[in-house]
């Protein structure tokens, strides 16, 4: 995917020179390996800072909510689905956007890679299928498919669902993937085990809200956790408050989450909160046949009523 970089600079340069857009949202190299950061280019001479590789896991749709100018944005499969969600939820107009589709073969998991090599990582480079990690002592060659972010390994929408132009030809979509194997496992647990499982899962949480800030869906002007009148949930690290936060955050994403993995990626303590959002994604799909953000013409599952909606839970 690193071969996209040149093409992206060309596209961004062209759009800015033609004044077709006011701003291009893409990625630039971060100050540390495997930490590319979002980049907002407004001048044609700055397009050289744009890059693309397997460290562009941040969801750029996050930077679109309520923008007024014309924007070109590079969008992976998941980003594009979140852009669709933004359009459906009136957070941005379709006419304001020039969507440059980026067929994606998955982003790599920096936490996994750090765990696989000894010592400080100085440099990470990649080819189509391999990742080369350089530490002060050694160079390690890893298979990219072994170090993908879990949501990328389970991804079934690698190509953008909406675009004005594409950076490259679409990549092959993954098939025969059981997206919900882990969720089934939790569903089969005994009630008490479930409670303990989530207690353990969430116990490292420091309530930094990085997951919320990285999430393109979390655009409320004031998040429920920040409100103090009324205060919906305690602000400390009491396990009940932590759980309430994660449970409610997941619910706010119900029928909207595209499993882009931004939350898990942003988490400084590595909590897999996607186990919560994915359960809701699974329920949405099973009960309403709904997958978020596939087309701007469809109304979301929570927005429509059908006479045959499942209602077994209403007594």
């Amino acid at each position, binding site marked *: 995917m690193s071969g996209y970089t040149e093409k992206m600079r060309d596209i961004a340069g062209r759009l800015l020179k033609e004044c077709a857009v006011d701003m291009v949202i893409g990625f630039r190299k971060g100050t540390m390996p495997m930490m590319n950061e979002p980049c907002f280019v407004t001048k044609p001479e700055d397009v050289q800072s744009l890059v693309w590789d397997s460290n562009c896991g941040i969801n750029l749709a996050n930077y679109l909510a309520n923008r007024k100018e014309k924007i070109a944005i590079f969008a992976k499969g998941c980003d594009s689905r979140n852009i669709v969600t933004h359009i459906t939820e009136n957070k941005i107009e379709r006419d304001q956007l020039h969507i440059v589709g980026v067929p994606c073969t998955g982003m790599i998991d920096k936490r996994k890679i750090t765990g696989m090599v000894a010592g400080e990582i100085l440099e990470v480079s990649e080819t189509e299928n391999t990742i080369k990690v350089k530490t002060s002592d050694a160079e390690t060659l890893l298979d990219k498919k072994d170090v993908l972010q879990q949501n990328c390994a389970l991804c079934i929408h690698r190509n953008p669902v909406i675009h004005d132009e594409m950076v490259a030809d679409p990549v092959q979509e993954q098939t025969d993937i059981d997206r919900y194997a882990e969720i089934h496992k939790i569903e089969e647990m005994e*009630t008490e085990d*479930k*409670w303990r499982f989530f207690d353990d899962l969430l116990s490292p949480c420091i309530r930094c809200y990085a997951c919320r800030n990285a999430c393109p869906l979390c655009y409320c002007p004031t998040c429920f956790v920040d409100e103090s009148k009324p205060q919906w949930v*305690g602000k400390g690290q009491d396990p*009940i408050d932590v759980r309430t936060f994660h*449970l409610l955050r997941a619910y706010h994403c119900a029928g909207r989450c595209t499993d882009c993995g931004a939350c898990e990626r942003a988490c400084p303590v590595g909590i897999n909160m996607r186990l919560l959002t994915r359960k809701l994604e699974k329920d949405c799909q099973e009960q309403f046949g709904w997958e978020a953000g596939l087309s701007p013409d469809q109304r979301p599952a929570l927005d429509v009523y059908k006479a045959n909606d499942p209602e077994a*839970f*209403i*007594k």
Partner: protein
Amino acid sequence: MEYMGIERDRLHMSWVSSAEATKFIDVVTRVTEAVRALGPNQHFVKQKAKVA
């Protein structure tokens, strides 16, 4: 909620119109019975803050 470890019978959901008094009684009775059978809720109970 069940997925997170809340007992199946602890949480109930129903639609009752203000004109459906009988249904209201029926629902309340069934909910109380189900919850009583489970006993006091042990989860989502906040312990008092530990002070030194």
